[in-house]
């Protein structure tokens, strides 16, 4: 028996979300009294650091084309390695790729699966996992009834624990099945933390009046080291790129801090952000519904408040 953790290595580097799932898998394995094995497909400059999370082994599988994600071939390889190492639990990140793999692996392993777990499993009565449902309006506890289990873990669900020792990465070679899917092109905005992983997010809505005014939002985000987001009408009007749209029909996020300026707080918007740890709302209308979901509120004109907040953040960072 063991727990296998598939860790993504976009562009040959493991990100914080990768160390989160490694920590999740290591903690789960230790409460199950078994070993945690990390798996990366292709190389990663910081793969050895996975050992610090408490993994007893880190495997690097070579033989798959890198940066050519195909759920069919990837799940084939992961399931094969799970079998070779008698892993009956597989842990993944709940990223776009992780979600595409979770269901496939569940079928291959005849496993019950939960996608988007928000905490470590409860082993006190079988094997239960909690996750957020109804677009953040409720939390459900699922019981997995099968011997094998596949779980994808929502970003920011736990802090990576890297107090252990780095370990040597074990190289293995795999043969991937031929595939009917080819990745032609990948476009990512470099240097910026993608929204689903961001710990700090600055978001703005229709109160901004137009795309030309976004400079003040970007300055606040830069001062904080935050990622920018927006409400749906803003993305629909092409004021901002679509991948910034958060909410029920956009990206669901759970950062530590969500600052919303000029967003009314419609229920569909809240659905994507109400799992944030702390919410700050800046709105000139004291009756805006968003204040009910906020921890801190500023009633005022965002065109004055946001630059003032940016200045205060800069002052704090330099103090």
């Amino acid at each position, binding site marked *: 028996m063991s727990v296998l953790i598939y860790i993504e290595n976009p562009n040959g580097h493991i990100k914080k979300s990768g160390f989160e799932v490694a920590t999740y898998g290591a903690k789960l394995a230790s409460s199950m009294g078994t070993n945690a094995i990390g798996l990366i497909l292709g190389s990663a400059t910081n793969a050895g650091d996975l050992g610090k999370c408490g993994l007893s082994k880190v495997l690097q599988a070579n033989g798959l084309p890198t940066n050519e994600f195909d759920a069919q071939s990837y799940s084939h390889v992961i399931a094969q390695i799970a079998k070779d190492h008698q892993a009956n639990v597989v842990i993944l990140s709940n990223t776009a790729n992780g979600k595409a793999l979770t269901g496939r692996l569940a079928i291959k392993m005849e496993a019950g699966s939960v996608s988007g777990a928000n905490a470590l499993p409860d082993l006190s009565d079988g094997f239960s996992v909690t996750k957020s449902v109804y677009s953040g309006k409720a939390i459900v506890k699922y019981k997995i009834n099968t011997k094998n289990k596949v779980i994808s873990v929502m970003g920011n669900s736990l802090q990576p624990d890297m107090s252990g020792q780095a370990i040597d990465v074990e190289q293995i070679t795999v043969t991937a099945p031929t595939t*009917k*899917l*080819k990745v032609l092109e*990948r476009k990512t905005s470099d240097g910026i933390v993608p929204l689903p992983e961001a710990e700090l997010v600055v978001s703005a809505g229709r109160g901004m009046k137009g795309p030309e005014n976004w400079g003040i939002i970007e300055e606040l985000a830069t001062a904080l080291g935050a990622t920018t987001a927006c409400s749906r009408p803003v993305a629909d009007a092409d004021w901002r790129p679509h991948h910034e749209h958060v909410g029920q029909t956009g990206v669901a996020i759970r950062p530590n801090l969500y600052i919303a300026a000029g967003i009314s707080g419609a229920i569909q918007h809240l659905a994507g952000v109400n799992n944030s740890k702390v919410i700050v709302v800046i709105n000139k209308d004291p009756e805006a519904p968003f204040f009910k979901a906020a921890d801190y509120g500023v009633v005022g004109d965002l065109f004055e408040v946001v630059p003032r907040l940016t200045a205060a953040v800069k002052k704090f960072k330099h103090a």
Partner: protein
Amino acid sequence: MNLLVCISKTPDTTAKISFKADDTEYNSDGVTFILNPYDEWYALVRAIELTEQNGGNVTVINVGPATNDIIIRKALAIGANDAVRIDTDASDAFTVASNIANYAKTKNFDIIFLGKETIDYNGSEVGAMIAELMDLPYVSYASKLDVQSALSTVTREIEGGEEVCQVEGSFVLSAAKGMAEQRIPNMKGIMMAKNKPLEVIAPMSGDVRVSTQKFVLPPAKSGVKLIDAENMDELVRLLHEEAKVI
């Protein structure tokens, strides 16, 4: 083109969320149900557009009880040609996926469409399961799809960006925003939908791999703390010292 669109029923986006039966079941009293937005706006409409351009047939499929017929009729009113309902409770993703795959196996669909997720369970699992059960490629979170005979070009969302891929032959796709524009059914569509075929099929038997133990509501916010708009130093201090997020 022979296309299949998987559709599900979810509470309206503004529905109140509460539970019954010792917090093990969703309380649907007084709740309006809708066709899951991703299935309706993006998956279904793009499938209809493709058959409008290239000819063919769009079948919609739902796993659920007879009370789901209302959303199936809506999909037919929007423009699907025929419908199938597999008469069982959608108890978990595996139940839904295995029943759909079992039906689709013999029908030679060119593309099987799903929404990127249901807005109640937020699982994003069914599509990947169907693809695996049928040994087909799977492209999730697709925001654009073009089909040139046996070659499809799909744009899919990934963390902080997008990816363009090419797929050969049949495949399974989950649709996200950008794929198509919502269509409101017109009177003619609604009338025609009444006479379109809706086949009801008995489910296959299978075990429930994942069962619901309990629902809980997230802890309520303790109330907003208002900060003077002139005093942003105070907000920064609170975020640092009290909330400890910066």
